[in-house]
């Protein structure tokens, strides 16, 4: 299966945690930092009114996003939701397109049609998301059916929140995937809140991975702030899916640092809760792990940050310089 052109030419995920390569570890680290910096940059740009609409920050979720999607091949698919703008980055979409998406410029993959955070990228099999929750999860399941029918060994990763597990579409998708043992990974980012609705008003469960018990395939709960734990669970599930053994539901317990969106002050959460979770920041945690193991030093760390910052600045510049779509383009792409 071709991986050419993929910015991260990982042919297959590494499955033995004890033997993870230095390259993998550094790669994961670099990607965590990239997601964090891009996301924080997006928030700044929004507050600077460099783009309108809204933005759903994923800061705090990086270990989940990176861990789950890092070992995907170019031919694999992602079905992202509103908080997964960075999944495009992980799959290898050039940053300039990601920022052009925020700015809704003619150079964005959808030529300014979708809202800033609802980003897909057809050339890399990232499904442009609709907002309506569980829709992507459903369509992603359909993609998995198609891949299976075509006899391909590609897989789909579908990202969604705790909130999405309450809606009917979630049930229909997972049930169907269970019946047909589809090559898909359901990654639930359980960040304890759906907007301002706390988990206790969403479900009577303690662990959302228990939802999988209704579908006859494995469901597991992992620490969503531990990138290696997520990577391990996801890469095993990917191998499983690729070899025809069917879907897996992975609940990653994590937290969103900021409001539901940039216009939500999130007063419904206690300061203590937020602070406690910020202490569990996945990035310093992984940094420490790498430094302890001498995989990372201060110098490399600074270099990585500098490189990424430069890349971001260039991308923002590109987005800034890009033209808006022409008004009359609004009527394009309705029908073929």
């Amino acid at each position: 299966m071709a991986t050419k052109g993929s910015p991260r030419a990982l042919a297959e995920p590494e499955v033995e945690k004890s033997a993870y390569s230095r390259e993998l570890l550094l790669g994961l680290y670099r990607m965590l930092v990239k997601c964090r910096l891009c996301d924080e940059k997006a928030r700044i740009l929004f507050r600077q009114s460099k783009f309108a609409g809204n933005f759903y920050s994923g800061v705090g979720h990086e270990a989940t996003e990176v861990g789950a999607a890092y070992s995907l091949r170019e031919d694999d698919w992602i079905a992202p939701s509103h908080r997964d703008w960075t999944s495009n980055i992980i799959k290898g979409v050039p940053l300039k397109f990601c920022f052009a998406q925020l700015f809704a410029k003619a150079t964005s993959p959808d030529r300014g049609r979708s809202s800033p955070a609802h980003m897909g990228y057809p050339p890399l099999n990232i499904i442009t998301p609709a907002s309506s929750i569980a829709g992507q999860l459903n369509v992603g399941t359909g993609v998995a059916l198609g891949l299976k029918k075509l006899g391909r060994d590609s897989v789909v990763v579908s990202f969604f929140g705790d909130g999405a597990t309450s809606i009917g579409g979630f049930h229909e998708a997972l049930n169907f995937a269970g019946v047909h043992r589809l090559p898909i990974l359901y990654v639930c980012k359980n960040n304890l809140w759906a907007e301002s609705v706390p988990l206790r008003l969403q479900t009577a469960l303690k662990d959302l991975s228990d939802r999988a018990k209704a579908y006859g395939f494995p469901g597991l709960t992992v620490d969503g702030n531990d990138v290696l734990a997520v990577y391990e669970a996801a890469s095993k599930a990917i191998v499983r899916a690729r070899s025809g053994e069917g879907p897996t539901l992975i609940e990653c317990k994590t937290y969103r640092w900021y409001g539901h969106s940039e216009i939500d002050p999130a007063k419904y959460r206690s300061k203590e809760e937020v602070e406690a979770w910020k202490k569990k920041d996945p990035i310093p945690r992984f940094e420490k792990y790498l430094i302890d193991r001498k995989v990372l030093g201060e110098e490399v760390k600074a270099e990585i940050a500098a490189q990424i910052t430069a890349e971001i600045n260039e991308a923002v510049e590109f987005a800034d310089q890009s033209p808006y779509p022409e008004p009359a383009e609004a009527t394009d792409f309705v029908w073929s």
Partner: protein
Amino acid sequence: MARTLAFIEAITEALHQEMERDDRVFVLGEDIGLSGGVFKATSGLLEKFGEDRVLDTPLAEGIIIAASIGSSLVGLRPVPEIQFTDFITVGMDQLVQQAAKIRYRSAGGFSCPITVRICCGGGVGGGLYHSQENAAWFVHEPGLKVVMPSTAYDAKGLLLAAIRDPDPVLFFEHKKLYRTIKSEVPEGDYTVPIGPAAIRREGTDLTVLTYGSMTHVTLEAAEVMSKRGVEAEVVEVRTLAPLDKATILASVKKTSKCMIIHEDKRTMGIGAELAAIVSEEAFDHLDGPVVRVTGPDIPAIPFSPPLEKFFMVNPEKVVAAMEHLAAY
């Protein structure tokens, strides 16, 4: 060579032939495999093409449609069946928010070539939840194509066109036509293009716009009126979205009078749009009001025979309206 086929046989034949011709095509839905479908439209497919291409699904219209959308993204050509349009409401989100908009929202990056076969319509004692039409909503949703044939010939030709179309097509099949309507159908491959309306009867005195099973009711009424010296031009709007405004307007401009007949309830039925187009774009040619003959504004067709009869448009109601308009 053409033989006479029933409406439903034409559909079955189209499915068989297209699945033979193109191995990207597969069918899915409730009850469609082992039993061949509630009306038997998919009969014989499972035996011929196997479980891989004929999928009996869980009872869940949302995932039936979503599974189709998703697999169309990777290049397949799914043809899901919705047993009764009364249950399309469960799949509304997938059709309207996903299928209709995925090409648009990805600026052409993804396309969604699915053909949703939907059984609809009343007059056969189906009651509140097996007689609805529910096509009107989708005509309001650009990105979707909506067709509804009335002859066996068109049923086969439009279905083949729909499956080959790069856009999502909702293919409405009026259940009353399945076995009551027969017509000549070529054995081989042909398509009836999505888009053009069909002039089913030429006339000079008034234009009647209609579609689906009402086409036959209208033609019957037109024959009655012909004996009374009024020649109605019957335009069957077999593609409901996008509408063939050119044919519609040309006919109205010719006859100067326009009537619309549909089975569906009146308010915001498809007749509303047809009337609006005509009254906006052919106003100068109109010699009378644009008249609608439709089902009454009640939630759905009730079951009890006298109530259903009350609902249905029949040739007598059409003739009465034609008399009135012709004399205007």
